[in-house]
């Protein structure tokens, strides 16, 4: 279960309609976020469930490299999902930035894509450029701080998952 957070979604602080469901307990009708392993195990049953479903991509993995879950594994289930929560284990671990772009640009996922875990002030703008639209922030963060951080770098050199084309292209629009 994630730590206490406030949800920043589409540029505004809001109540989170989603819950992180307990692995052992049957799902209610509330929009529920489950683990990838549960999704795989119960996919057939979950398809029949008439409520919003989300998944959290875990960052801590097993094995030598501890890479965590791979975004590619979500592909068969995207039609069932309205939300993907990407867990950032430490701010140093930037795998989630790639996962976000793959979801948006290759899988054309258009549901809610949120960052959870250790998410630093100075990463928000880059996360948004990668297609992340919701952030689980520490309770102390103000909307003003968030908006300021988002506005720090206005242009970009390269395209990503947002609508910035990038200077190399925009110079010749």
């Amino acid at each position, binding site marked *: 279960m994630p730590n206490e957070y406030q949800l920043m979604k589409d540029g505004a602080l809001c109540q989170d309609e989603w819950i992180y469901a307990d692995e052992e307990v049957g799902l209610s009708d509330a929009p529920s976020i489950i683990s990838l392993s549960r999704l795989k195990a119960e996919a057939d049953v979950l398809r029949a469930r008439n409520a919003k479903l989300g998944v959290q991509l875990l960052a801590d993995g097993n094995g030598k*490299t501890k890479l965590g879950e791979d975004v590619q594994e979500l592909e068969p289930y995207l039609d069932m999902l309205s939300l993907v929560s990407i867990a950032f284990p430490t701010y140093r671990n930037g795998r989630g930035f790639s996962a976000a772009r793959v979801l948006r640009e290759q899988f054309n996922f258009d549901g809610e894509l949120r960052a959870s875990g250790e998410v630093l002030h100075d*990463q928000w703008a880059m996360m948004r450029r*990668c297609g992340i639209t919701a952030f689980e922030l520490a309770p102390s963060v103000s909307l003003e701080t968030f908006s300021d951080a988002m506005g720090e770098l206005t242009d970009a*050199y*390269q395209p990503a998952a947002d609508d910035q084309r990038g200077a190399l*292209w925009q110079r010749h629009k």
Partner: protein
Amino acid sequence: MYRYDEFDHQLVGERVKQFRGQVERRVSGELTEDAFKPLRLMNGVYLQLHAYMLRVAIPYGTLSSKQMRMQAHIARKYDRGYGHFTTRQNIQFNWPALDKIPDLLEELATVEMHAIQTSGNCIRNVTSDQYAAAIDGEIEDPRIISEIIRQWSTFHPEFTYLPRKFKIAVTGHDNDRAAIKLHDIGIVIKQNELGDVGYEIHVGGGQGRTPFIAKKMADFVPKAQLLAYLEAVMRVYNMLGRRDNSYKARIKIMVHETGEVEMRRLIEAEFAKIDASQMLAVPQAEIDRISAYFASPEFENLPATSATLDAAQAQDADFARWVRANVVAHKQHGYGIVNISLKPIGGVPGDATDVQMEAVADLAERYSFDEIRVTHEQNLVLPHIRLDVLKTVYDALNAHELATANLGLISDTIACPGLDYCNLANARSIPLAQEISERFADLDQQYDIGELKIKISGCINACGHHHVGHIGILGVDKKGTEFYQISLGGSADENASIGTITGRAFTEETIVDAIETVVTTYTDMRQTDERFIDTYRRVGLDPFKERLYAE
């Protein structure tokens, strides 16, 4: 050379402002050091032994007189009157105060320079051939795609928190002066049978604790697909590179552990997806715009030889020696490529005072179409000097101790800052470079020995590139005492090789004698026209080992 447009100015300006805010939040306590550290690293600010260190980016080692003068100004105003040119074509300052760095960066921005991404787990400065646009036989000026790659990689939102640092180098010539095979990505500009220009891509080279020569991943990536290919490599690395152990997190380890074939498959698969979108095909108009900045200077029509030069050489033996060693043939008749040695006998390799920087700036402005290059061997270059004025340039350089005639010779040593400056070091490297230089001070003797690249690192991180020295020296710490391990036969060029350790390490007292033994072994065994590296490749390690450890 490239000139910023409003995009570039705005992005650099915003970054300076952003960093100023980050420094303020650190000083006020709002940011912990743990959270601040990656931010300051991404702005090139290290903490070293005695003070902070700031690394300023010199994209592909090219700068103008105005930019060089700003380095002199920074050295005076914010530092102790000198700077250090590095093995990645950048410049480092060893004594800036953190609370003054935002002001320093603001001043740098006025001459279109910055310290962005010169540290941290992101894509670093793209390095290239110091003789670009001056040497004969170049397929294309490698700085054009170096500039495109620089822009694409700057503030790249996906690749700012990589498993480790990432270094890219580009060469446009058969003689690789950019050491591309020792980089995370190395690019060789190629031309196919149809005359199209494309890129041969090597991945997974690097030195440090575990040196590797890069593996060729693509024979010929067409121009329009270069960035898509690079993005594919970066994404594969970002997603699958190890993050459990920072000593195993470079892409060279991933290539080694994954295997060449599987690595290529992963890259090709991702490349196909990215390329399909065509989002990264740079418009020809933009390529043309950037290329125009690297157009050839307006060379004069001159004869191939210069009577003025010939006469001056006849009159001044020191000058003749310097021309022979430091001036390289230029593609344009009547011109020469001047190498400025920052390795005076007994000096600190790669350091330059503010006065020296100003002198070089003046010469560049007057005589070299306002261009200076930095080499990864810690020297400088004036790329386009008329042979007629070589003597004038030499006299000016000589007046500032910048005319040591030792390019590529034994006293042209690469040395990392070592334990005199660096937090990571186990041993000092600069004093050893000085002692070797003094032992072989006689320039005629040096010239007779010929090309011999000694590279010294003060710790296993190999910033002195010792793995690819003809003679490599690694400083180690044994129970608090500095020892020096010798390796032989390394090379950073198109015939890249990692050196082999000779055996037991030497003490501070015996290391210089040991180097002399290696040199004598070579001169005893060499055949006509054999450089040290040629003789080593013919006879192998054993003859050197025998002499070094003979009792």
